[in-house]
C-alpha cells in the first residue's frame, strides 16, 4: 500500500507531499458519498420531530394524542411510540449507522413512554373485554398486570422495540430486572399500590409460551382475541430477540402462519386475510369464531398492518400478495386512499372490484368505529408504510403528494410534520385535510424514508458486534447540526459523514470520532477535496480534524452542507 513520508526536507519533499496528497485524494475520490443513503431535508425534519416528541415530559402527549378514536388500540399512544421506534431504528441502520447517540436516546425515551401509566393502564379496561358477540357477559372483571397474560398489543411491541434496541446498540439494559416497571397507583383512594416488574427476556418467554398454549394461534390481544396483525409484530419481535440472544422462540413463527391458514383466517392462495380469531371464554385452544380470509392482503384493516411486518420474514408471499390479481388489489387500495373514499361515511362500493368491495361497504357500518374517518386516517398511514416497505415507488409518490397537498405540513424548529387536523370533509376532488398524529408524525416518516424492505433489512441484515465496533461519531450538537449520513464502510475502510445546519444557527459544528485505529493514518477529504492526512497526535492544516490526547475531533463550518471522509491508509 502506498504511504506518504511523514517529514519533509526542502522542495523535493514538498513536491512529494503534494503528490502524496493528490494521490490520496484520488484514492479518496473513489469513495463517493452519493453512493450511500443520505437523508433528505424533509426526512431529517420528520425524524427530528419524532425525536422531539420522544423528549416531551412524561405524560405530555401534545402533538401525539388524538380524540379517542381507534379505541381498539387503546387510543394508540403506545403504537405512536412503538412505530416511532421502528422509524428511528430503520433510519439508524439505513442512513446514520455511525451516528447513534440521538436515536439511541430517543428510543430509550420512547420505550419509557410504553411504560407510562397513560399507555399501559388502558389494559385495566381492555382486560375486561374480549367478550365481543355472544360470549358470556358484556365485560369481565379484568386484571391489572399488562404483561403476564394477553395484551399482545403492548407487550408484542415492547418485545420488538426492546429487541431492536439491543440489536442496534448492544446495550442489555432491558434485560435488567424491572427494566419494564408498571406501577398501578391507587394509594390516595385505595389501600396501596401494586407494581409489576418485567425484563425483556420475560416478555419473549411469555409471548412464546402463549403461542404454544394456543396451538400456535398466537398471543392474544384482548382476552381470547387473537389478531393476525398483532401477532405479525410479535413474530418479528421473536425473530429479532433470537438474533440477539441465540434463542429459538421464532421457530414458532411459520407454525403461527400455518395455524391461521388451517383455521381459515389466512389464505396464501387467494392472497386474502381475515385477521381475527376468537377463543372460547376460559380456553386458549377452543376456537370459537374466525373472521374468514376474504379481504386482500393489500387492503383493509389487517392486510397492510400485517404485511408491513410479515415482509421481514415472508417476503415472497408479501410481494406476491401486493401485486396479486395483476396488481388490481393494489390499484384498488390506492384508489381508496387517494380518492377521498377513505373519509366518506358511505363511499360508493360499486366503484371497486369484488375483492375490496366488502371493506368499502363496511365503512360507516361498524358500530365500534364511530369516528370512521379518523380511524381510516390510521389505515391510510398503514397503507403508506406497507407500500413503502414493498418498494412501490408510484404509490408512495401519490400518497406523499396527497399528504403534501392536503395535510398541511409545517416546518417548525427544524422539524417537518403534518399536524393533527380534525376536518375530514371531502371535496369534489377527493381531497381531505384530516389527519391523525399517528399518521402525520409516524407513518408519513416511515413512508418517506423507507426506500423498500426497510423493516426487512433490519432483520435480514442484522447488526453484529463487528458492525457495532466500527467507528462512530459522538458529541454532535443536535440543535445546531443535522447529520444526513454517517457510515463506516469496512470494505473501503472509510468513514463518511455529511452534516448540514440545524434549527439553531451556529458558525461551526464539532464532534468526536470513536474507534479509529490509532496505529493508522487516515486521508481526510472535505467536500470532495483532499484536506491532508492525519495520524494519532497530528492535525490537518485547515483545522478540520485533530487527533489529540482527548480523541479525534472534527470541526466543520455550517454555512453550507459538509461531507467529510476519513479513509484509513
Amino acid at each position: 500500500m502506498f504511504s506518504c513520508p511523514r517529514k519533509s526536507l526542502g522542495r523535493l519533499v514538498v513536491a512529494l507531499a503534494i503528490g502524496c496528497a493528490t494521490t490520496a485524494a484520488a484514492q479518496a475520490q473513489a469513495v463517493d458519498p452519493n453512493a450511500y443513503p443520505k437523508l433528505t431535508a424533509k426526512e431529517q425534519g420528520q425524524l427530528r420531530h419524532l425525536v422531539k416528541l420522544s423528549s416531551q415530559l412524561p405524560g405530555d402527549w401534545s402533538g401525539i394524542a388524538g380524540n379517542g378514536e381507534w379505541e381498539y388500540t387503546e387510543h394508540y399512544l403506545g403504537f405512536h411510540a412503538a412505530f416511532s421506534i421502528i422509524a428511528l431504528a430503520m433510519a439508524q441502520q439505513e442512513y446514520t449507522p455511525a451516528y447513534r447517540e440521538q436515536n439511541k436516546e430517543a428510543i430509550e425515551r420512547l420505550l419509557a413512554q410504553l411504560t407510562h401509566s397513560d399507555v399501559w393502564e388502558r389494559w385495566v379496561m381492555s382486560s375486561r373485554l374480549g367478550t365481543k358477540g355472544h360470549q358470556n357477559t358484556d365485560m369481565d372483571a379484568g386484571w391489572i398486570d399488562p404483561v403476564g397474560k394477553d395484551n399482545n398489543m403492548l407487550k408484542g411491541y415492547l418485545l420488538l422495540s426492546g429487541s431492536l434496541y439491543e440489536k442496534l446498540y448492544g446495550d442489555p439494559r432491558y434485560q435488567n430486572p424491572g427494566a419494564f416497571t408498571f406501577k398501578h397507583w391507587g394509594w390516595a383512594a385505595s389501600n396501596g399500590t401494586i407494581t409489576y416488574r418485567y425484563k425483556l427476556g420475560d416478555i419473549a418467554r411469555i409471548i412464546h409460551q402463549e403461542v404454544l398454549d394456543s396451538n400456535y394461534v398466537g398471543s392474544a390481544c384482548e382476552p381470547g382475541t387473537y389478531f393476525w396483525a398483532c401477532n405479525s409484530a410479535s413474530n418479528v419481535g421473536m425473530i429479532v430477540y433470537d438474533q440477539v440472544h441465540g434463542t429459538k422462540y421464532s421457530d414458532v413463527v411459520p407454525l403461527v402462519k400455518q395455524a391461521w391458514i388451517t383455521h381459515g383466517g389466512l389464505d396464501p392462495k387467494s392472497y386474502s386475510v381475515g385477521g381475527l380469531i376468537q377463543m372460547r371464554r376460559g380456553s386458549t385452544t377452543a376456537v370459537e369464531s374466525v373472521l374468514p380470509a376474504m379481504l386482500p392482503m393489500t387492503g383493509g384493516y389487517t392486510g397492510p398492518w400485517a404485511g408491513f411486518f410479515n415482509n421481514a420474514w415472508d417476503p415472497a408471499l408479501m410481494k406476491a400478495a401486493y401485486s396479486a390479481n395483476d396488481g388490481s388489489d393494489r390499484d384498488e387500495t390506492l384508489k381508496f386512499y387517494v380518492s377521498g373514499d377513505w373519509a366518506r361515511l358511505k363511499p360508493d362500493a360499486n366503484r371497486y372490484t369484488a375483492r375490496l368491495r366488502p371493506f368499502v361497504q363496511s365503512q360507516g357500518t361498524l358500530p365500534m368505529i364511530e369516528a370512521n374517518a379518523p380511524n381510516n386516517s390510521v389505515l391510510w398511514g398503514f397503507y403508506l408504510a406497507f407500500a413503502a416497505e414493498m418498494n412501490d415507488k408510484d404509490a408512495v409518490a401519490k400518497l406523499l403528494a396527497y399528504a403534501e397537498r392536503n395535510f398541511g405540513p409545517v416546518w417548525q424548529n427544524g422539524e417537518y410534520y403534518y399536524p393533527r387536523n380534525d376536518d375530514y370533509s371531502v371535496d369534489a376532488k377527493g381531497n381531505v385535510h384530516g389527519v391523525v398524529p399517528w399518521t402525520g408524525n409516524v407513518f408519513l416518516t416511515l413512508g418517506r424514508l423507507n426506500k423498500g424492505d426497510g423493516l426487512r433489512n433490519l432483520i435480514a441484515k442484522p447488526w453484529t458486534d463487528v458492525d457495532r465496533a466500527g467507528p462512530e461519531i459522538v458529541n454532535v450538537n443536535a440543535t445546531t447540526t443535522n447529520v444526513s449520513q454517517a457510515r463506516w464502510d469496512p470494505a473501503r475502510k472509510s468513514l463518511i459523514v455529511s452534516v448540514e445546519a440545524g434549527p439553531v444557527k451556529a458558525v461551526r459544528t464539532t464532534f468526536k470520532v470513536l474507534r479509529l485505529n490509532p496505529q493508522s493514518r487516515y486521508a481526510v477529504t472535505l467536500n470532495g477535496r483532499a484536506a491532508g492526512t492525519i495520524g494519532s497526535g497530528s492535525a490537518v492544516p485547515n483545522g478540520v480534524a485533530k487527533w489529540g490526547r482527548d480523541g479525534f475531533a472534527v470541526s466543520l463550518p455550517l454555512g453550507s452542507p459538509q461531507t467529510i471522509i476519513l479513509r484509513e491508509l
Partner: protein
Amino acid sequence: MTLSPAAMRQPHLRFGLAAIALTLSLSTPVSALQAQSVDWPLPKIKIESCKVESELNANIKQDCTAIVAEKCNGIAECELNIGYHLTLGKDIDAAAGLLGKMVSVRYDCADGLVRQRGPYSQSDHATLTLDCTMS
C-alpha cells in the same frame, strides 16, 4: 366543644379536628416549637392473614400468614412480592392457569381498621405495598 364518641368516629369530623390541630400547631411561635420534642411514631403493620386461593377450585388454598408476617410485621411500609414463594415455590393449582391463584392479605395499622390488599393474581412479577404511613 364536646363531641359524643359516636361523633368522634365520623371520618369527616376527625379530619376537621386534625385540620384544626394542624393549623393551631403551625400558629405556635417558633420558639415554642423549638422548645418541644415532638415524637410522631408511625403506626406499624400487623398482618392479620394471608391466603392464596385457587379461582378454579375453592377447596384449594394455602395460608401464607407466617411468611408475610415475618417480612412485614412491625414496620410502617412493606414491599411485598406476591409470588410463588408464598406457597413455598409451588403452584397450588396449575389447572387454574397463570392468573388463577389469588392472593389476599389483611393487615391493620394499630387503629382497629383491617385493610385488605387483593385479591390479586399470584405472580413473581407483582409487588404490593402495604402501607401504614397514611393512616
